[in-house]
């Protein structure tokens, strides 16, 4: 590893959530502040010690510079800040850019924070319209393409090429719901079956309502600092950033190089290379699950199974406990919560909690290495992060 590698240089020392799910009467800034307060308390760090803030845009907030508005709201004056935007992959870039800023001396203690109020602040109809209207104004929007549609077309093509079945897709939703049932505060915990998924109303083929993620309120926050400073602070269980990688292959779905092989292949290859680990070394994962088929395709592109075998891999129980890679043990976007840009931060929160051994009855036994993959905009943006305990350095 060269001196410039980020591997193991930066640690996550605090994690926090706001109230999550259906949380009426709370602005995105208020939810962000609650998550930030919880993350700083978890780290045992005062807000006055935060000199960097990274955030993402909130649909239900009028503030374009969310990180700046947040800092004012929270009563801090950071000397490093930005509001990042690569859609669903933004969460991962908050970690990599925050780590790079710390390693490069731009900041010492960076707060990552994002929240939105899609469910009650914006309402589901407006949230879906906002997402739809973020697509190309000339070549996509005039045709009435729902946000689910681009992802649906990739899944549909995957079914065509590899024989992936609606039942296998539905199984993804079933597993996530089972995981959410063990997670305090999860938005949807009522058990569902494959038949329930297939009998739920069709949204856009091949996706039924229960193949689609939730619409939620809520936020999450994290505190990053250098490995040295984490030691000086006496942090009990620092979780290290071991590897990160990104890949951006297109903006428009019609320029996606392949509908069934995504930028996750390259983003994860880079993350594994930096971390010095292989897919089979991962013990727990957070995989962006905006739709059921997304998980199937990511399991392949992240190297957990071979191309085309994601469907049988899920149906075989490989993404749950005692499977090959327990994934989204909090229930994911499909059943825990999906509040837009912060959505993947919930995956980070869960994987880090797993690595710290804090997950109670849903704990994956002695998990030391974890992967989070976040993505967005019909697979236009992909980012992979590998995290580990002290023992994995």
């Amino acid at each position, binding site marked *: 590893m060269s001196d410039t590698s980020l591997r193991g240089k930066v640690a996550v020392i605090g994690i926090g959530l706001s109230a999550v799910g259906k949380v009426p009467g709370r602005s995105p800034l208020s939810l962000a502040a609650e998550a930030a307060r919880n993350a700083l308390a978890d780290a045992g760090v005062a807000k006055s010690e935060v000199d960097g803030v990274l955030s993402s845009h909130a649909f239900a907030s009028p503030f374009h510079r969310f990180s700046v508005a947040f800092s004012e709201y929270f009563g801090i004056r950071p000397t490093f800040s930005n509001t990042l935007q690569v859609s669903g992959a933004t969460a991962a870039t908050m970690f990599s850019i925050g780590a790079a800023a710390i390693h490069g001396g731009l900041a010492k203690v960076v707060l990552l924070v994002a929240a939105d109020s899609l469910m009650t602040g914006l309402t589901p109809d*407006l949230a879906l319209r906002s997402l739809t209207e973020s697509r190309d104004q*000339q070549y996509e929007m005039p*045709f009435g*393409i729902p946000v689910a549609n681009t992802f649906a077309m990739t899944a549909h093509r995957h079914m*065509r090429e590899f024989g992936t079945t609606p039942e296998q897709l539905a199984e993804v939703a079933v597993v996530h719901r089972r995981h959410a049932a063990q997670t305090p505060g999860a938005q949807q915990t009522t058990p569902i079956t494959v038949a329930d998924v297939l009998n739920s109303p069709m949204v856009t083929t091949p996706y039924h309502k229960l193949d689609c993620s939730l619409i939620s309120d809520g936020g999450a926050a994290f505190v990053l600092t250098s490995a040295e400073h984490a030691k000086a602070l006496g942090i009990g269980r620092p979780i290290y950033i071991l590897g990160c990688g990104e890949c951006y292959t297109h903006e428009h779905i019609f320029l996606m190089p392949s509908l069934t092989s995504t930028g996750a292949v390259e983003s994860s290859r880079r993350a594994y290379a930096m971390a010095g680990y292989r897919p089979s070394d991962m013990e727990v994962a957070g995989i962006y699950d905006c739709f059921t088929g997304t998980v199937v395709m990511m399991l392949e592109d992240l190297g957990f199974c071979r191309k085309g075998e994601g469907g049988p891999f899920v149906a075989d129980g490989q993404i749950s406990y005692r499977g090959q890679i327990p994934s989204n043990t909090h229930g994911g976007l499909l059943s825990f919560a999906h509040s837009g840009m912060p959505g993947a931060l919930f995956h980070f929160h869960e994987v880090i909690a797993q690595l710290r051994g804090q997950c109670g009855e849903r704990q994956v036994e002695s998990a030391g290495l974890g992967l989070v993959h976040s993505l967005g905009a019909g697979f236009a943006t992909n980012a992979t992060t590998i995290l580990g305990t002290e023992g994995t350095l």
Partner: protein
Amino acid sequence: MASDDSAQKPLPAPDADTTTFWRGLREGKLLLQHCRQCRNAQYYQQATCRECGSDELEHKSATGRGKVHSFSVVYRAPGPAFKADVPYAVLLVELAEGPRMISTLTGSDPEDVTFDMEVELAFDQVSDDIALPRFRKA
């Protein structure tokens, strides 16, 4: 935030890069850009070739024939403007010239769309200035 006139279907607003493209559609032609340097054919319209960066681009009419690379039939409209249209099939069409484009099916049952189905261009004049390129079963 979502726009206020949600009952209106969004119409493309041609810009400096795309005026020629939309004028072509109004005149019954789907224009692709062909690069004189590297022979790349591209959809959508822009000032330079996406492959080699050359600005020597020539507009040529596409044959309008293609096949369905993937598709998804919409049952839940993305907003009030499209509610009356469901179900409708969104197509990812691979044109005979190579480039892919997004459009919708017209003129037949959306539930009959299949992979690799042959389609041909159908112009849909949705306003005085705008004709949308849709596809019908060939």
